[in-house]
């Protein structure tokens, strides 16, 4: 029989005021298995804890029940006391006589009876406790940062500056992301590239950062501290070591009419190209889909002119395997294109553009050198209508959320236009103006009041062409819902910010969850905003939800500090309240039948497949195995397991069952 000690705390008068503690101790002493039962004024005091420690040794206790306050209050205290007394701390349980009994009931016999029951329940539980030991997991102190936009750059630099290795993977030929495309940034109107490019260079030159551009995550396995990532380095068709970035190749490339992605299709590039002049790394790649040699088998002009003979037409994609301890997902966003809107002509009017395209038009390094020109005829528009909430906050379009940045950048666009085209007329159609943020509201007011941009509160129902003008029809809801019609030369849609088209695929690769809009889900919306539900994977920037640059940077730094925190120890120590799969001898080896229905129920993807093989390697069966580094101990799998092959340490079936039997 186990040897259980019961320690009843009076908590001053807090418990003993309504519960007859002496009686509880007396009755508890009679429970089978209880060899020691005392009550004391303050169990959490030093003398109280000494009572426990001494009894553990004198009575050779195999389990301790402290009947006192809530375990959420003092469980660590008493578990530590037990450990100091020489008992495994997980052989200590608490019965909550204060919050759940003495404080909520009157001084009645039934209250003492309940206290006795609570003690008995815990005595029966603790009889079935088994010693547990904290779980240690080694940590590989290298972080993988997915995405080289401002979020990834900030996170990478912070982690690298904290002294840890970083591997950054960027899908495009250059890092920089969307921020590199922006003209000026609100609310300060400082030049986006001016503040970004030094950071890009810092990334490239940082001794702790390994940069893979034109690369994507192929596969991610493992768990916190011990991920194994496979990175696909797409063939750039050049030898990066030899290439000096001189630029002769793209000057000579005959295919010059390819629409530039960086310039949002408003400008052109060559087949061998760098996305933009300040690209990092500033070395070209060959776009094989447009390269004449790859398409037609003839050309090789770049190869001929390359002074360092760096062109490699036969280059293959390369798979690189790396071990990392943490992952920061900073894969960014996309914006909806103009063809998403039937009421605005499904993108058939070239002068209806997106906000991002406007950024390129307004950018000094853009296709028009910063002059606002109509894409159709290059004329400077005299009237521009800006339409906020193009797609956002529109459940009918499947996007019910607010894209958050549009109010601000639309104000910025209108202001920039007015600064460049003083006599021009700017109209902004909006639903609400959301300008929460430092100096944001002031910025919008300046746009309206100083730059005389016309703000019209109402939806635009239709845009159509009338003699070369774009007729914008809507309703001004502030003027008694008066219909309004504007003839504009250009319309800028603040199209919704959406998840990357392959966000779902990426989330599945990383085994993290994502929401209905395909944005990655943080572990907790309030308290764990940069962690993901898979331990060791963090999130930064707009891949989690629409956000502006300051927020993105803040989140990136937060993620980086989480990573640095994780990397501050060589080993991760965890409470052993985790699930375990029971094993038996041959021929079954485990009662687990390998149905893996638990797999999809696990919120942490902690369930792995374990193959049981004969000595000569023949597969006998595949059973579930819990990755104890990942498991958080919720027990959802335990409830789901039909054969009860999975159990949760600390809350085992035997323990809970015993509690019920003792009711």
């Amino acid at each position, binding site marked *: *029989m186990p040897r259980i000690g019961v320690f009843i705390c009076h908590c001053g008068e807090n418990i003993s005021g309504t519960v007859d503690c002496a009686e509880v101790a007396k009755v508890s002493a*009679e429970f089978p298995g209880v060899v020691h039962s005392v009550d004391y004024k303050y169990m959490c005091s030093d003398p109280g804890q000494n009572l426990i420690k001494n009894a553990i040794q004198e009575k050779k206790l195999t389990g301790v029940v402290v009947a006192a306050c809530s375990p959420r209050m003092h469980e660590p205290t008493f578990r530590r006391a037990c450990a100091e007394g020489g008992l495994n701390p997980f052989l200590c349980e608490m019965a909550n006589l204060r919050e759940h009994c003495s404080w909520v009931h009157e001084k009645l016999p039934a209250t003492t009876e309940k206290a006795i029951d609570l003690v*008995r329940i815990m005595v029966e539980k603790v009889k079935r406790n088994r010693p547990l030991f904290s779980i240690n997991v080694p940590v590989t102190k290298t972080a993988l940062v997915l995405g080289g936009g401002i979020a990834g750059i900030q996170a990478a630099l912070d982690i690298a500056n904290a002294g840890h290795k970083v591997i950054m993977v960027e899908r495009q030929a250059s890092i920089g992301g969307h921020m590199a495309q922006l003209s000026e940034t609100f609310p300060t109107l400082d030049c986006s590239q001016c503040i970004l490019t030094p950071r890009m260079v810092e990334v490239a030159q940082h001794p702790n950062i390994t940069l893979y551009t034109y690369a994507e995550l192929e596969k991610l396995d493992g768990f916190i501290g011990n991920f194994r990532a496979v990175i696909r380095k797409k063939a750039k068709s050049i030898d990066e070591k030899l290439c000096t970035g001189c630029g002769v190749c793209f000057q000579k490339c005959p295919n010059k009419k390819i629409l530039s992605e960086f310039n949002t299709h408003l400008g052109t590039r060559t087949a061998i190209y760098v996305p933009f002049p300040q690209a990092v790394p500033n070395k070209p790649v060959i776009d094989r889909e447009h390269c004449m040699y790859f398409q037609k088998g003839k050309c090789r002009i770049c190869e001929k002119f390359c002074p360092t003979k760096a062109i490699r037409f036969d280059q293959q994609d390369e798979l690189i395997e790396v071990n990392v301890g943490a992952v920061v997902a900073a894969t960014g966003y996309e914006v909806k294109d103009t063809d998403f809107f039937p009421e605005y002509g499904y993108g058939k009017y070239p002068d209806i553009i997106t906000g991002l395209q406007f950024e390129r038009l307004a950018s000094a390094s853009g296709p028009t050198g910063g002059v606002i020109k109509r894409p159709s005829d290059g004329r400077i528009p005299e009237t521009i209508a800006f339409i906020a909430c193009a797609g956002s906050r529109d459940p009918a379009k499947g996007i019910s959320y607010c894209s958050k940045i549009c109010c601000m950048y639309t104000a910025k666009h209108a202001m920039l236009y007015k600064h460049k085209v003083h006599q021009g007329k700017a109209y902004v159609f909006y639903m609400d103006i959301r300008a929460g943020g430092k100096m944001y509201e002031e910025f919008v007011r300046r746009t309206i009041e100083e730059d005389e941009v016309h703000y019209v509160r109402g939806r635009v129902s239709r845009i159509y062409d009338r003699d070369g003008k774009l007729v914008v029809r809507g309703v001004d809801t502030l003027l008694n819902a008066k219909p309004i019609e504007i003839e504009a030369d250009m319309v800028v849609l603040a199209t919704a910010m959406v998840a990357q088209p392959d966000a779902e695929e990426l989330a599945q690769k990383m085994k993290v969850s994502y929401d209905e809009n395909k944005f990655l889900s943080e572990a907790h919306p309030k308290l764990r905003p940069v962690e993901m539900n898979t331990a060791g994977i963090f999130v930064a920037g707009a891949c989690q939800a629409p956000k502006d640059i300051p927020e993105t940077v803040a989140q990136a730094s937060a993620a980086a500090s989480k990573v640095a925190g994780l990397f501050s120890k060589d080993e991760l120590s965890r409470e052993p309240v985790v699930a375990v799969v029971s094993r*038996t*001898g*041959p*021929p*079954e080896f485990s009662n687990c039948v390998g149905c893996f229905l638990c797999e999809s129920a696990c919120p942490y993807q902690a369930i792995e497949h374990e193959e049981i093989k004969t000595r000569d390697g023949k597969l006998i069966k595949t059973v579930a195995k819990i990755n104890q580094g990942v498991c958080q101990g919720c027990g959802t799998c335990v409830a789901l397991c039909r054969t009860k092959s999975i159990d949760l340490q600390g809350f085992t079936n035997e323990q809970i069952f015993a509690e019920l039997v003792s*009711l």
Partner: protein
Amino acid sequence: MNESKIILKKSLGEWFNMMTAGGYRVVGPVGQDGQIDFEPVTSPDAVRFDHVQTNNSGKWVMFPRYEAMMRFRLSGKEVQAGEIPPQAPPTVLFGAHPCDAASLATLNAVFTWDSSDAYFEPKLANTTIIGLSCTKGDSYCFCTSVGGGPGDTRGSDVLLTPLDGEKFLAEILTEKGKSVVGLAPQLFSAADGTSKEAALAKIPARFNHRDVTAKLPSLFPKEDVWKEQSLRCLGCGACAYVCPTCSCFDIQDERDRYTGVRIRCWDSCGFGLFTLHASNHNPRHKQSERWRQRVMHKFSYQPERLNVLGCVGCGRCSRSCPVDMNLGEHVAALAEIKV
């Protein structure tokens, strides 16, 4: 003994009443078509005569599905424990067909082998069997192959044979039988000499059980035979649980907080875990081995060790089998194998 009398069908109700008044619990075949079972008879009218066979056998009267044998209470380090005395109310098992009556010999042989079973014996001693000869059978019946017959008297204390729709020939076979008849002697009249044979069902013999018993030891190693027969066997316990002679059991403790009982309940050799060792080794790992055990046990081991056949040919196992494992057919097939 062996005195024959006549009782009219319409008098049976009165007889039941006298038995109840005499302190007997009367158990007989009651229920709806397709669901006729031996249960305490609450009204004589409810008793069925027209069925071939009940779903379950009446063995529960002597060997219940579950039965508590010991009770105990834990307090501190002490255990208060005591026997739960066997409950053996005087019972009349009415309407048992000759196969069922014959099964008592098998059960008795198991439960009294060397040591006596405190729970079975008093129940058997306190049970009076009023058998009922079979006037019809079905293709599953094979009593005549295992030494029985539709009018076999073995095991019955009184055997009733319906002579026509109205009257029964009552063969009074034992002292116990005499006592229950003695409860209402006025209901019985002298036999008129009509033979019961004409009324009995014709059950063709399918095999000779002595030959089977003699042959089985040499069939044991023929794995293929057993494997082939049992390929479709699901490994459930239906056959064993409806069988009137199957007596394998399990002993288990059921407990509440500090009290508990030790229970004996039915078990079946068809279950995969029946013989599983704690070490996970299982002497009868395959279903074919368990099927062989079932057949060997009934037709070889019990005859050899206990001098009784473990099968009475009632056919219940085959009627209840979800996958049509037909014992009569398979044993007949075994009998055909040349060794």
